[in-house]
């Protein structure tokens, strides 16, 4: 998938995180080290509370690690960058903006004129199948639709890296599967580097090139499992022997 000698786009170099308050210290992450190649889809999986989300926020520059560093294209990351996009657990739409204007927000911040921003936003709403809901306010959208809008917003300004923090965890299983499928479809169409946090084994295998398995808190990367199911993948792959074997392996690692 990648040339063997390509340089990684994102590197976590002995990233360690301790939350300290007046009377307690909590080690959330114990020296996580790994790298992500350009256009790779990587899932971080681990038991809840293992520091996955913290690690993701560090990768995005939203939080400074206690020690260690993150390298983006070889340079230390000290603050959030536009080239690294986020998709949060909740859709986090602005309730006062229509779906269209929510998607247009990143472009408006960039200084793109409003008409142009909205034209481009409409293209991405079409991509997630919500063209007719352009003028709807978030309160009139279902949970699944809100997450599609959030996905469109994360894609519209074309960041190189997309960090997904259990993006569809709050949705029901069917909607979630559908959105994963859509995510895969979009990712296959316009390649991006994706790092996604999840605690769903099937989801991780279905989507990724690599699954990074984390230990319980304080989290560290314990296993790096390559997923060699050929792409493009389809929902039928969920029932292949290879898929079941990988599921078994990952479940054993997580026990």
């Amino acid at each position: 998938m990648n040339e063997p000698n390509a340089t990684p786009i994102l590197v976590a170099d002995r990233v360690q995180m301790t939350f300290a308050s007046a009377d307690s210290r909590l080690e959330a992450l114990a020296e996580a080290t790994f790298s992500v190649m350009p256009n790779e889809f990587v899932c971080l999986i681990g038991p809840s509370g293992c520091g996955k989300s913290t690690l993701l926020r560090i990768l995005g520059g939203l939080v400074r690690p206690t020690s260690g560093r993150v390298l983006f294209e070889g340079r230390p990351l000290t603050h959030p960058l536009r080239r690294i996009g986020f998709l949060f657990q909740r859709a986090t739409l602005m309730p006062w903006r229509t779906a269209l204007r929510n998607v247009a927000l990143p472009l408006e911040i960039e200084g793109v004129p409003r008409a142009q921003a909205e034209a481009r936003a409409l293209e991405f709403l079409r991509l997630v199948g919500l063209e007719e809901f352009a003028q709807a306010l978030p309160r009139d959208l279902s949970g699944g639709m809100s997450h599609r809008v959030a996905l469109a917003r994360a894609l519209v300004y074309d960041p190189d890296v997309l960090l997904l923090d259990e993006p569809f965890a709050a949705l029901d299983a069917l909607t979630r599967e559908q959105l994963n499928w859509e995510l895969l479809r979009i990712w296959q169409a316009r390649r991006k580097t994706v790092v996604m946090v999840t605690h769903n084994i099937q989801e991780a295998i279905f989507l990724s090139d690599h699954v990074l398995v984390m230990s319980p808190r304080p989290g560290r990367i314990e296993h790096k499992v390559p997923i060699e199911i050929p792409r493009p993948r389809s929902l039928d792959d969920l029932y292949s022997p290879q898929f079941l074997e990988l599921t078994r392996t990952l479940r054993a690692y997580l026990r």
Partner: protein
Amino acid sequence: MQRLGELVSALQRKRGRVPRFNWEYVLIPAVLVAVIFFWDLLVRWRGYPAFLLPSPARVAARFLVAVRDGSLRLHTLVTLREVFGGLALGLSVAILLGYALAKSRTLERILAPYLVASQAIPIVALAPLLVIWFGTGALSKILVCALTLFFPVLINTIVGIRSVEADLMDLMRSLQATRWQTFRYLELPAALPVLFGGLKIGVALSVIGAVVSEFVGADRGLGFLVNLARGLFDTPLMFVALFTLMAIALGLYFLVSLLESLLLRWRWPEE
């Protein structure tokens, strides 16, 4: 005056919705008529002299006189100027300081005791001092007005800005939004519902502030007019002044509500 008044429903009609008949528009004036009727009945039945309780007709007559000789207009304009001056000053300082306090826990910790302590002094007790310092002109009135509405608006601003979702703040950071963009696109609209709550309290309090300061030392204004009428045993004029004050407070409240319903349309569910 529930959240949407007549004007708003007129606006909605313009936007092409079929208005549902609303009993409020009939009941609100009906209550007013009933109150005036019983007031008149009470005066006739007990035979109160005009300096104790004037009949509605005498108040109306006095109102016409005050309108014709221009005195009502003069005093109303004076009070309005104080109210608007106080609003402009009080709101801008309270909102700017509220924003700063909401963003900085350190600043809040340092200033909070002083701000709370300042509220322990009743504004009525502070007003004479301000009149001594700043004279009997408009400035001391504007300051009293501003101080009266300052605290509730400040608290509402802090609560409003703090209520902004952490995830949305993270989103703005990940988009590398500037401080101004974060304020303009996120904090201001997110805080607006709470800010409007503060604004509604603020406009009502600013009228109180103006009257209090005019009581302490003034030679014009509606508060002064109340005082003057009391001295002359001209109770009908007192009623005129009081009703005018009520009208100002209602009018301001209504303006704020109208603005609110226009700006916060996203909050009301469509019917």
